């Protein structure tokens, strides 16, 4: 009896507030209302809401999904989200790997402090961390002032409200997710392997390429997924740092919902986004499982 309560309380909570809402999204995305009766305004009351949703259940079709393919905006937004996420994941790796490497090579008594310094930004508000770049990257911002002062440029660079600012924002906010798994693999790295490689005539650099990088592969893969997966659906970074030309699907969904009040299309956008995410999520889990089997 106790066991039943223990299982059923969290179970029912998740069913009611995770699974059922998601099924509603799925149903609405398959409902034929996008064109005919546009706005399901938020003032919809209880009775109408149910009736509306029941009506959705009755007539399912893929009109909203075909609508997504007819309008350039959506597939361009999906592609550009993937592209922005992929490139910024790669850049985060380039920035994060040397930091993780430096941490793993640091003296033992430094490490707890270094670890805390990497984790601390994670506890600080995401919104504030993104916001902090607005004052740096704007035309009269700190970066442009600095570059003008050292005489590198005489015209301010336009960085804020471009994709470059979005890349910087993603690298900055997701950097700890890249550093930590790589550090975890590098920390366990057996130093005698590197010594052996050097004894056998490897230069330091080639020992790094031939020994260190392959042995930290698991951490690199994990870090890349941890950055890539959330970056695809990112909303805050493109809307604060990106410009009108920055197309990302999280932002499109938000605007479809809040500005156009087109719920069926917003739901269809959400379903397709989730379908896109399934592949990297499965690959990520497989990587994690492989690692666990290796360790266990």
């Amino acid at each position, binding site marked *: 009896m106790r066991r039943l309560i223990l299982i059923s309380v969290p179970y029912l909570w998740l069913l009611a*507030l995770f699974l059922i809402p998601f099924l509603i999204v799925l149903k609405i995305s398959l409902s034929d209302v996008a064109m005919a009766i546009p706005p399901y305004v938020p003032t919809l009351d209880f009775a109408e809401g149910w009736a509306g949703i029941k009506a959705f259940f009755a007539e399912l079709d893929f009109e909203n999904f075909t609508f997504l393919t007819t309008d350039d905006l959506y597939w361009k937004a999906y592609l550009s989200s993937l592209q922005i996420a992929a490139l910024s994941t790669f850049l985060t790796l380039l920035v994060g790997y040397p930091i993780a490497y430096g941490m793993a090579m640091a003296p033992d008594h430094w490490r707890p402090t270094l670890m805390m310094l990497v984790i601390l930004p994670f506890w600080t508000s995401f919104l504030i961390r993104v916001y902090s770049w607005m004052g740096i990257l704007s035309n009269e911002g*700190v970066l442009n002032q600095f570059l003008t002062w050292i005489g590198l440029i005489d015209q301010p660079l336009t960085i804020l409200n471009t994709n470059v600012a979005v890349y910087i924002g993603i690298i900055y906010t997701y950097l700890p997710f890249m550093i930590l798994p790589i550090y975890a693999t590098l920390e366990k790295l057996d130093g005698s392997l590197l010594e052996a490689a050097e004894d056998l005539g490897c230069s330091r650099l080639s020992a790094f390429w031939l020994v260190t990088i392959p042995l930290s592969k698991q951490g690199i893969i994990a870090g890349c997924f941890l950055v890539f997966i959330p970056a695809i659906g990112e909303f805050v970074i493109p809307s604060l740092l990106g410009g009108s030309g920055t197309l990302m699907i999280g932002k499109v969904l938000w605007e479809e919902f809040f500005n156009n009040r087109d719920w069926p299309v917003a739901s269809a956008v959400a379903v397709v*986004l989730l379908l896109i995410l399934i592949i990297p999520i499965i690959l990520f889990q497989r990587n994690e499982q492989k690692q666990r089997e290796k360790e266990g």
Partner: protein
Amino acid sequence: MRRMTWFNATSLTLGFAFLYLPMVILVIYSFNESKLVTVWAGFSTKWYGELLGNEAFLDAAWVTVQVAVASSTIATVLGTMAAYVLVRAGRFYGRTLFSGMIYAPLVMPEVITGLSLLLLFIGIGLDRGILTIILAHTTFSMCYVSVVVSSRLVSFDRSLEEAALDLGCTPFESFRLVTLPIIAPAVISGWLLAFTLSLDDLVIASFTAGPSATTLPIKIFSAVRLGVSPEINALSTIMIAIVTVGVITASIISKRATLMQQRDEQAAARTA
């Protein structure tokens, strides 16, 4: 095999400069006299004064704290239960679905979680306000709590629980007297994580908040959309200060607790 070469030292210095400079600049400009955030016009604390006089921000901060305390507390209870179920309950009907529902919200884009919960609340006719934000935050943060707690549950010696049962404890007593004290550090860090996630969340709160309840991130977001503002810098500085003090205190406490535990174990080993 520790080599602190110039390369490692440089990459650490540059890396941490990159992580911390933006926040340092933000803090510095919160003490700027000028309304123009980019022109330094002398030291002043006037933006802090204006912030304290800003009713809308204070109201939003109060709502945010209420939501964070309520949702992280419920999430800790539910998440600990879920972790216990995942690690200890063995096989039961629908277990795969259950563990799927625990892990899925961790990778679900916030826009989708927010949208789906909003559609549910409208479907059942629940007015959007503090309650709906609490329900939404509890749902995603309980999954984080259960991941944190279950990793601790997996690693601890189950025979301790069995010993308690053999000595006449009821299952609940054995949980309260044996299991809970052992997993307490994980439960506390789960609560802290849930609390921070709730304080921080913009996207899900935007979907589930109504006109009657606005959280601080929603307020900040709508303010900074229009550009940089010194008042927001002041607010950010306060939040950064609270987090820094909190994290450092927590790490000192946990370090001390580990030391005490080690000492106790050594003493126990000596007497035995």
